[in-house]
């Protein structure tokens, strides 16, 4: 106990000293140096509290009383057990509850937050195929999301396609993009692949940003058409599904349009997520899925076993791009407008963080990871509006601490060799 207190004190002192120069020292060309003490003390206090929590968690972990029982939660990890009837039943109840929430008077803020979380969860589960199963690190996954969103937006707005044709087209376009970027991946390994996908992601964003005449660039507009009209030209089915009373703008009832759109997108995103989870689950159990796991563990060995690594890698890339592309449709409809800045490198990193934090190879983990990483900053801002400027500081610290405490991710199984 004493030992730990001493370590904590040392850590605080170190943090204080470390924080001192950057936090307190102000150089000014007219007045010279000034020293402001408060920020350094605040930082030291934050580190003290954070350090105490971290130490407590590490100690708990060390004593074998891990606060989170991993085994119990990894039941649905891919490729483990066959889902039995009870599991299917509980899953059904879960999905039904989530689906019923908007009808039970879920506030608008929650609807939006959950809807966005489900979109991110869909993408994270899809990304699980490349990172979790095949062990290929992708740092440009947002590009596939962008391709899906813009394909959908441009087809519906510029070409006037029906929603139900444009929707799969978005997925197909993203999958084809996955094929294109998957080809160089055949030769590259580990971080070389990571940096190529990173560059690719940025390149896609720049193309969207620069081709303003087609994509609207930074101004959010699909061409020169009203962003809201993303929702208009979706044909009869789309109209029936998405078109509330009138979005003309002049004849609506105040406040109702956005609420309706939120709710309908919510259900759409939920269905998409459920289908995605089912597909990825089936993929994991299929021949291809097994081949992907083999690829992750040892590429050379997998090759020797007669696995066509080329084909399997391409399938992984295309499948995970497909889900990102399909998920791209939701923000296009829900937000009514899309912007290239939505698909920057930070977003790609966020996707990877969702997968890794949740646990490699675990579908449940990806969903929980998406929920944590997307909902937490928003909730923090909502719960503590006075200190909302500090939310990302806290969030980053929590992310690092969580990784230190559970390196294999929340739902990651026994330690395995990871990607890269």
């Amino acid at each position, binding site marked *: 106990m004493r030992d730990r207190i001493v370590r904590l004190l040392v850590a605080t002192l170190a943090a204080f000293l470390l924080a001192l120069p*950057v936090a307190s020292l102000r150089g000014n060309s007219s007045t010279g*140096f000034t020293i402001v003490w408060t920020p350094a003390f605040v*930082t030291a206090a934050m580190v003290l509290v954070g350090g105490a929590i971290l130490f407590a968690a590490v100690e708990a972990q060390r004593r074998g009383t891990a606060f989170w029982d991993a085994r119990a939660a990894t039941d649905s990890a891919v490729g483990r057990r066959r889902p039995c009837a009870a599991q299917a039943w509980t899953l059904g109840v879960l999905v039904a509850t989530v689906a019923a929430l908007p009808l039970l008077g879920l506030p608008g803020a929650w609807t939006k937050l959950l809807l966005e979380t489900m979109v991110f969860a869909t993408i994270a589960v899809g990304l699980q195929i490349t990172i979790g199963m095949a062990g290929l690190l992708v740092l440009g996954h947002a590009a596939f999301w962008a391709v899906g969103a813009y394909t959908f937006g441009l087809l519906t707005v510029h070409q006037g396609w029906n929603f139900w044709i444009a929707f799969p087209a978005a997925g197909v376009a993203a999958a084809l993009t996955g094929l294109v970027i998957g080809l160089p991946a055949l030769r590259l390994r580990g971080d070389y692949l990571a940096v*190529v996908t990173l560059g690719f992601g940025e*390149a896609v964003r720049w193309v969207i940003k620069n081709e303003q005449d087609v994509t609207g660039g930074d101004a959010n507009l699909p061409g020169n058409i009203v962003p809201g009209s993303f929702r208009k030209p979706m044909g009869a089915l789309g109209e029936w599904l998405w078109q509330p009373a009138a979005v003309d703008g002049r004849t609506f009832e105040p406040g109702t349009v956005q609420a309706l759109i939120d709710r309908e997108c919510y259900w759409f995103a939920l269905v998409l997520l459920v289908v995605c989870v089912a597909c990825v689950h089936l993929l994991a159990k299929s021949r291809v899925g097994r081949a992907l796991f083999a690829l992750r563990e040892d590429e050379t060995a997998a090759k020797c076993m007669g696995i066509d690594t080329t084909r399997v890698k391409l399938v992984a890339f295309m499948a995970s791009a497909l889900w990102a592309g399909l998920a791209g449709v939701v923000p296009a409809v829900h937000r009514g407008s899309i912007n290239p800045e939505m698909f920057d490198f930070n977003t790609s990193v966020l996707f990877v963080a969702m997968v890794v934090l949740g646990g490699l190879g675990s579908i449940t983990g990806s969903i929980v990871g998406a929920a944590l990483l997307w909902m937490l900053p928003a909730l923090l801002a909502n719960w503590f509006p006075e200190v909302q400027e500090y939310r*990302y500081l806290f969030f980053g610290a929590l992310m690092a601490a969580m*990784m*230190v405490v559970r390196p294999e991710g929340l739902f990651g199984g026994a*330690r395995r060799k990871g990607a890269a």
Partner: protein
Amino acid sequence: MLQNLWNGLVQGGIYAIVALGYTMVYGILLLINFAHGEVLMIGAYTGVATLAGCAGTGAMEAVGFMPCLAMAIIGATCVSAAYGFAIERAVYRPLRGAPSLSPLIGAIGVSMVLQNYVMRTQGASPIYAPMSHPAYVASLGASNWDIGPVSIAPLDLVVLVVCVALMAGLWMFVQRTRTGTAMRATSQDRVMAGLVGIDVNRVISVTFVIGSALAAVAGVLLALFNTQAKYDMGFTSGMKAFTAAVLGGIGNVPGAMLGGVLLGVAEAVGIQLLGAEYKEVYSFVILLAVLIVRPKGILGERVAEKV
């Protein structure tokens, strides 16, 4: 055209020093140190604050600009090295031996913390180097030298000289000293290095300290070059340097230098010839082209796969 070749060379020199930090850490830990850019940013802030303070207290008038710059660089180096050391101890060491993506996410967390921390404490607006100070104007702000079509600023020369000196120094350190030998041994095989009596933990700490110190120097130079330091400056530089390190063959010290310079030149020449619209795409195309021909980077060794 020649002017932009020169501009690219200078910018590439800065990329190269940052890339060295990435490549050294990667060589030993096989880890992408995503917080490296933030360490650079902290160095830049310390350096610019020192310079501005020197200008404000009158020290700069008394001793001239260059001693102040030296002091700023030394100060920034110390602070950044301390941060690098602390980050390794707090986040990467507990994660050693964990699945290789976990430290990556830890690093992203750290970089978020550092960025927001500096934004909160030093403000979101950029801080400017005292470049209108008479002492600066008298030394580095003096008029440019025109050599044919190329106009060379004194600052450019300082940047290049420091870059070359640092690279040479690092090369000597890695090749000639005992610690450098230990570093090379650790990067070849960490377990074996430990068995033959090398203190691996110490070597890793030293690597982080050196890498962070290099980043700090790059940060100060970059801040001078860009005239300002801002809390988010580490992100772009970090990403560029990471690309440069991979381009040259990650884990390879001369490769990082080559990659950095190549990237800087490619960008500047690309802007000159093809326009700025697709600046970020040029580096990607070059990267892709190089990696398709040489999947392990320009100078990356073709290591036989262990089966």
